[in-house]
């Protein structure tokens, strides 16, 4: 039915002369390519085209046989505005722009990786100790001794700590805003969280070191009861510990994780929510059946963005963490992350060999973020069929 209606309409439009130019042009340009010249031409010149267009549009009416199907779509499609084989200028420009933008990003990443490799490999080869396992760091030109292990450890521990604290909190806030709070409360809470994201990290650093740290001593003392595993063993740094840094990092990544979780929770399809209600779900069960599974991939993406920020956070961590002379795996000890170490030593970048050591540390951070992102993507994709 619909197949018949449309061409009839098109044909009548051309015969009525309502849109003769539009009806005729694509057709004409398809044969001769002279479509543009025909448009302003006098009616006399346009006249020969019009019957052609008419035949072209009317053909589908008569052509009911399946053997005629390809020409039917061919004649119908230009007039319907879905040209196949003809690329419009706008499409071409957009294609070029988007391809360019996407390509630019890839090129950038490749160039950064290239830079990191070229600058760091000579120093790593010159390293007198094992770069991956040594706990030493004295990149003196001529006697390069540097290992990434403590920096990497501190970076990972502090970031994981931040994730453990931030992600559940963020999910809780996002659920509260989207499914529990009345609108009058949800809005201000959402704004407040967004404002957290607007605070510069230097402020977090000063605040974390000066204001928050003394208040965390009590919490840290309480956590001393956790026991004797290396992660909790050394207790030599009351303020400026990895624990201290992790808490501040958690606050710093809270907004991004919350914002993305809130976004996906808000979009939970109404049908899914009603399906849960109708089964006799309580509010929490509804959230568990409909909202959380739907938001899972989004929450993971948000958490990974947060983790990316935590891993790379420099100035706040630099201000908060106490430097220690000997590496300790305890979260109640001080230390340096890869980023804070590099920032701390910027003044030493006068020699290519020692600079190379810091760039090597940067390379490890770069690889670490890649691995984390790849892992997140795998988790998200693993149950792709189920989303």
């Amino acid at each position: 039915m619909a197949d018949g209606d449309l061409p009839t309409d098109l044909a009548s439009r051309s015969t009525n002369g309502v849109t003769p130019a539009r009806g005729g042009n694509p057709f004409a340009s398809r044969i001769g390519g002279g479509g543009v010249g025909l448009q302003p031409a006098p009616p006399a010149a346009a006249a020969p085209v019009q019957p052609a267009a008419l035949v072209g549009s009317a053909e589908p009416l008569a052509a009911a046989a399946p053997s005629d199907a390809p020409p039917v779509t061919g004649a119908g499609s230009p007039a319907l505005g879905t040209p196949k084989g003809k690329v419009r200028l706008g499409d071409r420009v957009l294609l070029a722009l988007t391809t360019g933008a996407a390509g630019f990003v890839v090129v950038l990443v490749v160039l950064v990786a290239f830079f990191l490799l070229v600058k760091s490999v000579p120093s790593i080869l010159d390293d007198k100790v094992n770069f991956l396992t040594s706990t030493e760091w004295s990149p003196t030109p001529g006697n390069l001794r540097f290992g990434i292990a403590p920096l990497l450890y501190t970076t990972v521990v502090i970031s994981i700590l931040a994730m453990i604290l931030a992600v559940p909190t963020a999910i809780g806030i996002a659920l509260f805003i989207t499914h529990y709070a009345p609108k009058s409360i949800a809005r201000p809470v959402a704004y407040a969280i967004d404002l957290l994201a607007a605070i510069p990290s230097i402020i977090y650093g000063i605040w974390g070191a000066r204001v928050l740290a003394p208040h965390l001593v009590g919490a840290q003392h309480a956590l001393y009861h956790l026991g004797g595993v290396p992660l909790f063993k050394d207790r030599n740094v009351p303020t400026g510990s990895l624990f201290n840094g992790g808490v501040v990092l958690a606050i710093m990544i809270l907004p991004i994780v919350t914002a993305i979780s809130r976004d996906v929770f808000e979009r939970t399809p109404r049908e899914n929510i009603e399906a849960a209600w109708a089964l006799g779900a309580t509010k929490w069960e509804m959230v568990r059946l409909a909202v959380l599974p739907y938001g899972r991939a989004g929450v993971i993406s948000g958490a990974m963005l947060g983790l990316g920020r935590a891993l790379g956070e420099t100035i706040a961590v630099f201000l908060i963490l106490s430097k220690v002379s000997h590496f300790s795996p305890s979260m109640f000890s001080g230390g340096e992350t890869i980023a804070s170490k590099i920032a701390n030593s910027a003044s030493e970048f006068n020699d290519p060999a020692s600079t190379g050591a810091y760039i090597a540390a940067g390379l490890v951070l770069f690889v670490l973020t890649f691995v984390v992102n790849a892992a997140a993507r795998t988790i998200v994709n693993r149950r792709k069929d189920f989303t």
Partner: protein
Amino acid sequence: MAKRIEGKNLNIYYGKFLAVSNVNFTIAPNSVTAFIGPSGCGKSTVLRTLNRMHEVIAGASVQGKVLLDGDDIYESGIDPVAVRRTIGMVFQRPNPFPTMSIYDNVAAGLKLQSGRIRKSELDAVVEKSLRSANLWGEVQDRLNKPGAGLSGGQQQRLCIARAIAVAPDVLLMDEPCSALDPISTMAIEDLIRVLKKDYTIVIVTHNMQQAARISERTAFFNLAGVGQPGELVEMDDTQTIFTNPTDKRTEDYISGAFG
């Protein structure tokens, strides 16, 4: 066990707006009752008051009584969650939980109600429900595949299986076939005829032929006027409604004079 449902002096509101006024009806157990009427006349709204789904919408409220075998489900102290567990619902668009497998979809309600439940028991209920929903043969070897991967008609039967897995007293269906093709619609209609042996079924439909095909009783809803609330014009045996209705408006609607 199928139960009788009565609506008494139901006034249904969205905020301050009275959407449906003064509805009274009785629905016999083990019967199929169709709610018909033009769009916006409140038939879905009435249906949603029967399992307290109406109040899920912010600001929505109900006055009056809905009696389930004589017990008012709107009495204070009655938990709407408990009501919904005894009155199942199937929606206009198939809505299996997209992140769950076919098996988990059917088991979802049961897991909510019984907490821990033995796997063998769960298996049995899932199979029985899928068989009752006439879907078992099509999905038995892919129970762990996502429910959302099924065709529309299969998804709707999956939703019916999910609803009946918890052995409700009543099954409410809100235009269950409007998103489906004729073949799938036929499958659902056949299913409804079988299911009424065990359940009281109330179905909202835009399709008058469907109402005539599957229901014993038909209720015709209409707006009292422009800007007026919806009302129950008349309710009678389906045969009577479609051949010899009492009210002129019913006759006009049935004969296609409006709607």
